């Protein structure tokens, strides 16, 4: 079947999270993407676990593979004097060039927007970095794991009587690309209609802050500095996750309306405590939430998380198993949605990749190739895609340009 972005060509000089994920989503929808690294400075993600059989190795890392599937992988030593000519050929070929180094580094490597625009005035280029290309903190180093703290989400996660606990991993690395893809595809459309290219400066910090706008307004309007509140909600009780049968198994339940509370009580067989005035209204239940949660836990612990979820859902309540990294790939809904796609990687073997979180009815998402090994497609990309002659390819290879 045809894909929406067929014919779009991306020279992806970016690394780690956001930049590669943006290019990967384009690849899922038909774009031709070349991920450009160097043996002299491989994508740092290749050095992070997990590895095949727990043995480290640049081509054994699933983390890198899973953020770069659908792309051809080449190596190019940007510090080599003859790399400039190859970069120019990439830019001439591409519609989009990407980079995600610390601000200032792209210029030193000869792939800044000014550099590539000189080769191709209508090129679209995006840079993604932590904090944006300008400003006093632009060059501050850091990873997505730091960004979740800066953006405010860590402070808002955990229990009020304890230290904040970070939301897992590099949350901003997954949020920012959704903004990046939206703006980049809009830029592609604009280019198609007007012939004009442009430069996109994506700050992970700025894009992710948008999710918290109501709290920013709450601070201004009401002087309130939002705090972490465990699993409670100002509008619902019970609202939390409850222990279920088995080791560390939990089910989330959210009861918002009086009708839902009635239905909830029925599901748990109307024990006497549900008639206690301490639990008669949502406000009363909020006041006595600790006791409420303890009593509910006494009921849920006798059932599996799946049983609790199904019983609640059948009665019209929002409820869901707390899936874990070990159970998520078996989640029936995600299976139905083909969210995880198995691909055979040359060194890792068969493993699973996330599809895009949306399906398009006529131009589907397709995961075609596993993440590339370092330099896996050098010959194909340089000779077939960029049209470098065999002789020149061999000569450049000999000179170490493709390291």
């Amino acid at each position, binding site marked *: 079947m045809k894909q929406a972005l067929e014919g779009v060509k991306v020279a992806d000089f970016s690394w780690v999270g956001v930049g590669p994920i943006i290019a990967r989503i384009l690849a899922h929808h038909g774009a031709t993407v070349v991920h450009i690294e160097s043996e002299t400075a491989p994508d740092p993600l290749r050095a992070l676990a997990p590895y095949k059989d727990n043995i480290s190795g640049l081509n054994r890392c699933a983390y890198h593979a899973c953020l770069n599937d659908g792309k051809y992988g080449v190596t190019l030593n940007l510090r080599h004097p003859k790399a400039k000519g190859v970069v120019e050929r990439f830019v001439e070929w591409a519609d989009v060039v990407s980079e995600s180094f610390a601000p200032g580094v792209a210029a030193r490597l000869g792939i800044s927007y000014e550099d590539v625009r000189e080769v191709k005035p209508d090129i679209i280029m995006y840079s993604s970095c932590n904090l944006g290309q300008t400003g006093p903190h632009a060059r501050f180093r850091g990873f997505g794991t730091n960004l979740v703290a800066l953006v405010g989400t860590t402070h*808002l996660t955990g229990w009020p009587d304890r230290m904040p606990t970070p939301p897992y991993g590099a949350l901003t690395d997954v949020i920012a690309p959704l903004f990046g893809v939206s703006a980049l595809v*809009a830029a592609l459309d604009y280019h198609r209609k007007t012939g004009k290219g442009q430069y996109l*400066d994506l700050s992970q910090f700025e894009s992710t802050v948008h999710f918290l706008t109501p709290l920013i307004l709450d601070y201004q309007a009401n002087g309130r500095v939002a705090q972490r509140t465990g699993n409670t909600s100002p509008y619902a009780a019970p609202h939390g996750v409850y222990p279920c049968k088995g080791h560390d198994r939990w089910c989330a339940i959210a009861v918002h309306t009086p009708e839902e509370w009635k239905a909830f009580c029925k599901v748990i067989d109307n024990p006497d405590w549900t008639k206690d005035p301490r639990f008669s209204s949502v406000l009363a239940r909020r006041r006595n939430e600790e006791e409420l949660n303890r009593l509910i836990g006494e009921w849920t612990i006798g059932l599996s998380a799946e049983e609790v979820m199904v019983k609640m859902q059948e009665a019209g309540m929002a409820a869901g198993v707390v899936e874990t990294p070990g159970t998520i790939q078996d989640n029936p809904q995600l299976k139905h949605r083909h969210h995880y796609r198995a691909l055979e990687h040359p060194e890792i073997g068969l493993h699973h990749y996330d599809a895009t979180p949306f399906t398009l009815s006529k131009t589907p998402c397709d995961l075609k190739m596993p993440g590339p090994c370092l330099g896996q497609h050098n010959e194909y990309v340089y000779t077939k895609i960029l049209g470098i002659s065999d002789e020149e390819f061999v000569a450049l290879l000999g000179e170490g340009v493709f390291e």
Partner: protein
Amino acid sequence: MSQKDGPLSSCRVLDLTDEKGLFCGKMLVDLGADVIKIEPPGGDPCRNVGPFYRDIPDPEKSLYWLSFNTGKRGITLNIEVSDGRRIFRQLVERADIVIESYEPGYLDSLGLGYSDLSQINPGLILTSISPFGETGPYKDFKASDIVVMALSGYMSLSGDPDRPPVRTSFPIAYCFGAAGAAAGTMIAYYHRELTGEGQWVDASAQQAVASALLNARMHWDLNRVELKRAGPYRVGLSAQGKQLINFRCKDGYVNFVMFGGKTGAKTNRGLTQWMESEGMGSDFMNEIDWDSFDMARVSQDDFDRFEGDIERFFLTRTKSELYEEGSKRGVTIYPISTIRDVFEDPQLEARDFWQRVEHPELDATLLYPGPFVKCSQTQLRPPSRAPRIGEHNQEIYHNELGMSPEELVMLRQAKAI
């Protein structure tokens, strides 16, 4: 098409969403689209979502509503009555995109599903946003933020081990799903502009959040190792043991993650020297050769000793001092920002991120987040005030669709608008 109006300046969007999808339309507004928020007569139920301006619950004062409807125009329309559906079909004729977040199948039941709408307008893109997607065994499941955070697996990794997993205390699952929907909509739009062909975009919040499991899922997929929530510690970075990554400091908390080898050497050495120069040196850290420091060989006892020494130093400095001064010394320490810290962040200020929006009805000016990406040619549209209930009824129904005042009165009496 002038660059000031954004890349989507000739694009018309009808927005039928509630809190599950508002953010998608907001992103399309920022990209320049003319987004018309369609509310049921009397106003959208998510105008009742707090917080509220001056804590006064009022459908015109929901800060949640104001946040995610900036720049939209607003009309009231009841698509459950036949007059309302007729008007909606008229609007669909001249729209490019319809966004909705009803329960799957609801629009179909009104005769307004994708197959119906695409007959009226074959180039139309219908974007459906739901907790779990339009198909599959959970499609009719009831959801709320915590349930999506649970079923995506994400919350299993947050929280203290001796307590239940926790979600982030402010809902983000629906924004996540809606931002994914915006990306999908743009890809469909690109295709539509090229070929004239519309299609149905089906976005799932569960899938969007599940993607954030990243390497935690991969640890299981490859090696059947399951990472667990570890409170303010982090697991999975070193072979054994857990490392503290959130530390107390003088005025709150900071985030500091120790990496081994070359990746961490600069920060680790810089911090060791900084502590020494302030008379708070750690004998233990002073003896380490950071270039060859291997996380895999550090014992839990060693981690505990680092952490004690480092925290004693952090407690003498503020978040901001550790962040700013640390960076000068090549030491990566990040503040665990409160919302106030985010609002006052010098980097955001220097980039003119916050943009003033006048609220004459509240007699206030509020600062909103500016463009989510800075584009050199098609600058994103700055935020402007969200619509009041039915604010643009006259503009759309009278000026655009040419309805007479009598007709409008009739439709109002028929509870269509």
